[in-house]
């Protein structure tokens, strides 16, 4: 469960102070499917970075499964991140010199998992994403949809409880986009908490809850 209490985040841009997040208090239950929507500059990305423990809030509290992460040091946050959170980016961020399989293997390698266990999990994930025949291709031999599927495989291979996706279909045509959306939603049905930044109204409509952001504030939806 995610709980944000009176979260603020400010940036200093030149002379000007920008309030990227302004007193945000939200609660996201396990297994929820949240769509974060709003115009650019509204603070969506900043919120995602803080939720993903990639950035720190200026003030306020963030409780992740009951742990107050604002009190943790960088090392502890990194560990928590690798255990609980998976990321999917708009531009995939695959490492181009590594094959699809090696890209998915990377988080497990960084975590120091044994080779045997890694191979077992890789086979599972590749099968689930239907990427077995693409496993030894490098990212530039793959289509956009396939790349995003590899990136999703990398995000879920550590079995995180939360999946953060920042415009996951933003670079894809509608057909591959729909496939990626379907994949993310099926992962949510299996129990993962899915938080998606999206401009896609259809996706927003299917989500359990929409967070509309404007000028660093969340407009709580009615009901």
């Amino acid at each position, binding site marked *: 469960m995610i709980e944000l209490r009176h979260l603020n985040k400010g940036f200093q841009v030149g002379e000007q102070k920008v309030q990227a997040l302004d007193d945000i208090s939200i609660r996201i239950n396990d297994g929820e499917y949240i769509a974060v929507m709003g115009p650019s500059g509204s603070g969506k990305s900043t919120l995602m970075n803080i939720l993903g423990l*990639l950035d720190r809030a200026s003030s306020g509290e963030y409780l992740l499964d009951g742990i107050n992460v604002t009190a943790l040091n*960088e090392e502890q946050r990194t560990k928590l*991140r690798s255990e609980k959170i998976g990321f999917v980016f708009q531009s995939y*961020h695959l490492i181009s010199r590594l094959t699809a399989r090696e890209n998915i293997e*990377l*988080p497990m390698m*960084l975590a*120091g998992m044994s080779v045997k266990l890694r191979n077992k999990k890789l086979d599972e994930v590749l099968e689930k994403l239907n990427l077995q025949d693409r496993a030894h291709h490098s990212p530039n031999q793959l289509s956009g949809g396939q790349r995003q599927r590899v990136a999703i495989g990398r995000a879920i291979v550590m079995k995180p409880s939360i999946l953060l996706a920042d415009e996951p279909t933003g670079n894809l045509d509608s057909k591959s986009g729909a496939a990626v959306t379907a994949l993310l939603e099926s992962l949510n049905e299996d129990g993962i908490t899915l938080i998606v930044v999206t401009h896609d109204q259809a996706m927003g409509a299917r989500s359990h809850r929409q967070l509309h952001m404007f000028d660093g504030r969340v407009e709580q939806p009615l009901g």
Partner: protein
Amino acid sequence: MMRLPDIVTFSLQVLVRQRFRTIVLWVAIAIGVIAVNLLTALGEGAKSYALSEFNVLGRHTLITLPGKKETKGGMPPFTGESPRSLTLKDAQAVARISGVKAVAPLVVGNIEVSYAGKLREAMVMGTSRSFFALRHLDVAQGQILPDRGLFKGEAVCVVGQKLRDELFSAKSALGEWVRLGDSRFRVIGVLKEGGTSFGFDMDDVIIIPVVSAQTLFNVDGLFRLFIEVRFFQQLHQVKQKVVALLKERHEGEEDVTVISQDAMLNSVQEILDTLTYAVMGIASVSMLVAGVLIMNMMIITVSQRRQEIGLLKAMGATSLLVRNLFLCEAGLIAAIAAISGWLLSHILLFLANSYFDDIQFHSPWWAQLISIVLAMGLAMLFAWLPAKQAASLAPVDALQGKQGR
């Protein structure tokens, strides 16, 4: 924590799969090491060549030259005007000093040499039989000057190889008569090819008995008197005896200079010191250039991977792990490149040394060590700095390729 074999595998994947980048780094680091080794070897070669030029006399030899020179702050000139000449009688007296093994007088001059219509300028050295042993000269054909005492002239000569070739071509020179000025001399020997020593090209000289040379040039003084002592321990003692004897023979006036090789080396020490500083200067400049080259290549290639660093952090790598990954990678390429550069520089030096006989090039051990340590140290330092900077950014900023705020 990421396992060590995985760290090495990850680094090797980068090096093998980003081949162009690896080759560029390899070349930069290897060139750095090669430059330092070759340039210092060049400097050291020049230094030891200069040193060997002053070493030809051997430790047992004293040189006497006419004229008293203040030797402080420099070496005495080779051609000094002398108030009183050093004579053959002086040489004979010196030869009787206990501890003196042999003396060799030397008179030199240029003269026209002719044979069968061929005319050529050549340097004549008038000396005695003991000169050959003293200067380690040997004949390729015939014999050296006969031993008939210092005061007996004879119309015989020993010629250098080059001179022989030019005057006689394919014909045998032995027994032929050559004309030196107005006199004729019979060739009794041809010197072995000896190269240049102490300023004289020994392939281009004619050696005749000292008295004959004095007659030829109409002089009674000597240009030099070489004295070989029996034991090196007595060198200084003999030197004092020679000075005392010659002072007595010259009516109480100390008008000759006696120098030993050590003294000569001391007087050229300034030159040698300068050469040493030059070698060190060359080494530091080449290290600086190599260092800047390595630094730039490393900063550029690591900075290009800021996104990857951000990604690694987002996927659970600590800043420490990111740093270790980049250090491991830089260490691997730097070690491979530095060692191959070191090997290549040795191959090049070996080739140069087998091509040149006179000068031998050897890079001093400290330059070799510093070149390798410096190349690896710089490569790792300048991989670490940008990696550390990128790792200290919020992962998202690094992912977006931001340069920091």
